[in-house]
């Protein structure tokens, strides 16, 4: 559970930093009037952005718990023994491509370029479709090797982690589809910039989560860091 506690500690530190700016030591019973607003920040955050941040914090903890469960359940010798990791590298690349394409969509929307926006959204959609196809291929390969969900703990976690992550990516794809439909109808593509930005951030977060999962499931250059964070309490 070290990873989970670290994750919570980071959230707690961020919350404490934010709370420290909220005048929690003030004496509201002595402060009457209407000029006592929250100290002005650089820019108020849009509700949708804040909502996404809160949601991602919860999703992040969900995956941190799953990784913690993996480390508690799967014997050390069975860690990172996936066959044919090339598929997972492809999955990683495709997800990164989708993320890059979505950032392209944000830039196109900012410039008001409808065609550029649609092209970038199509590229992101294609990349995520590829992501799912290669993920499915990875499942097929494992099943062909006789490593079904009930075969051992490492395989079971592989299906669980990739399936839950895939479901979250699917949510992002649904949002992407909505943006694409709106892009076809919108009078001004600039109106879609906030939505495209949120979608891009969401996929960025899922890419980051995937990199952690990949580092757990297969030996990657960053696996050592993750394993160090996942040590026993």
């Amino acid at each position, binding site marked *: 559970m070290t990873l989970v506690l670290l994750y919570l500690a980071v959230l707690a530190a961020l919350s404490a930093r934010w709370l420290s700016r909220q005048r929690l030591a003030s004496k509201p019973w002595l*402060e009457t009037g209407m000029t006592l607003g929250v100290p002005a920040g650089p820019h108020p955050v849009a509700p949708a952005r804040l909502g996404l941040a809160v949601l991602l914090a919860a999703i992040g903890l969900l995956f941190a718990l799953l990784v913690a469960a993996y480390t508690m359940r799967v014997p050390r010798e069975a860690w990172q023994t996936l066959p044919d990791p090339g598929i997972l590298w492809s999955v990683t690349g495709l997800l990164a491509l989708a993320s890059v394409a979505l950032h392209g969509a944000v830039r196109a929307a900012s410039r008001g370029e409808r065609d550029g926006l649609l092209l970038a959204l199509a590229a992101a959609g294609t990349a995520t479709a590829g992501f799912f196809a290669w993920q499915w291929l990875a499942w097929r390969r494992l099943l062909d090797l006789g490593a079904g969900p009930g075969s051992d*703990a490492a395989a079971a976690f592989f299906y669980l982690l990739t399936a839950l992550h895939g479901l979250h990516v699917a949510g992002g794809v649904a949002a992407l589809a909505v943006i694409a439909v709106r892009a076809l109808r919108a009078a001004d593509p600039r109106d879609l910039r906030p939505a495209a930005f949120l979608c891009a951030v969401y996929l960025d977060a899922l890419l980051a989560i995937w990199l952690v999962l990949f580092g757990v499931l297969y030996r990657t250059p960053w696996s050592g860091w993750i394993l160090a964070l996942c040590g026993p309490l």
Partner: protein
Amino acid sequence: MADAQLGTAGPLPGAESEDVELYHPHSWLTKYVFSQDAKIIAIQYASTALAIGLVALVLSWLVRLQLGFPGAISFIGPKEYYQLITMHGMIMVIYLLTALFLGGFGNYLIPLMLGARDMVFPYVNMLSYWIYLLAVLVLVASFFAPGGPTGAGWTLYPPQAILSGTPGQEWGIVLMLLSLILFIIGFTMGGVNYVVTVLQARAPGMTLMRMPLTIWGIFTATILALLAFPALFVGAVMMLLDRLLGTSFFMPAIVEAGQRLRYNGGSPILFQHLFWFFGHPEVYIVALPAFGIVSDLISTHARKNIFGYRMMVWAIVAIGALSFVVWAHHMYVSGMNPYFGFFFATTTLVIAIPTAIKVYNWVLTLWRGDIHLTLPMLFAIAFIVTFLNGGLTGLFLGNVVVDVPLSDTMFVVAHFHMVMGVAPILVIFGGLYHWYPKVTGRMLDERLGQLHFWATFLGAYAIFFPMHYLGLMGVPRRYFDIEGLSFVTPSVATLNAFISVVALLVGAAQIVFLYNLVRSLTHGAPAGPNPWRATTLEWQTPETPPPHGNWGATPPVVYRWAYDYSVPGAAEDFIPQNQPGRAPGPAPA
């Protein structure tokens, strides 16, 4: 002193919120059924929670009948008994208490108390309720599924939860886990809404330190829930896969009825960690809104500012933070490194400090207050006493050496019913009596309310005080029948029968309350806009019940904190938060 000019035409405070474009319903269906108005959603949440709570009440009656009069009810066997206690516990903790505090009170009070027109994501808010309803229906469906609902106990511990000896192994456990997963998805939608609304939709002038403690409690509890429910989600999904796909996340190699099952190497302790990582914060997910609400009830009905507001806020935040590092105190008897036991015992006891601060502050708020023994106040005082009692027995159980002999006895049952069952439910009742006039425009019947209060309060003590003694005498929990056990004295049966009779009466009193809720909709005395002469914004709406959008043409501006009661020199004994003008004198801290 950070005093400020009042009632002047100075600049508005730094953009706590801006007025928003509301969704307006176009039909009866979108206004009252698929409504995006937080007030309607709150009523939907509360009605659904009370309805499923009624089911839990009937289940508890059946449990008590079996314990008090073993064999009297022919259709209750050991299997049915386990199903009854499991469903009673799960419904009460998740589908009633959590849903009612956050979905019910949260939806109604957050926008109104903060001066907002609605939640920031009304559509998502609506989805949240319908997914909650679906979760409830899936849970209820398990009563009608082959084999009935699960009888695994509300903690759903593997391996027994999915072994064939446990009732509901075929369908019941699957539906329970699916229902929990749905509940968590629905709650997450609502929870994101509550947090963002509190942070971004507050009226001008409504700084965090001017928020009523009810909102602080609901806000902090929502954050806890957003961080705690993922653990239950993970546990539920993994157990579902163990049950359906034959994975072995939690299931060890095990022999059942002489046959070795397909499972191998799973860790039941892993499930316990996940469950209690959720389970202990869950106590505070229920308790923190109760703390907040009771603070506001006491201040309003004692006509006195809350004592130590800042400390109350800090205590809420501290309790919320600490609640994440105490989970393993539920697992002392599961075995752990003694140093861990020491750590978790220490953090558990440390939580008593901010909690005690709150209790002291409630008592000091009452001290020399102009106490009106209204129904909300009666319930609030009853809560303080009950929570104190439940908290004190928690100190027993927080210590490893005392906990071990008391584990799995009726002492534990009595403890958590006092602290997590009766106490928050008393606050729910207090809150419903307090805010019903705003929701409906009518008062609840006073005489029926008094009957309800005294029957509930005295009855709860008649039930749970003796139950502690049963535990000290070694009576185990979760036993279908304790007759014939050599370590159980004959007097236990008498005490059990007494408890059961009282439980039936207390349950009947809740029917009186439900009758009062319905009858007062048409027969209650008109309440007027602010029958309790309260300061907070929800009582200052231009219409009662508040219309869609809450505030008419102009949203309110906040000039003061929520507790200006009995201010020396003021014309009345309360000054609403949206009333401009300097308070005549500084109120005591």
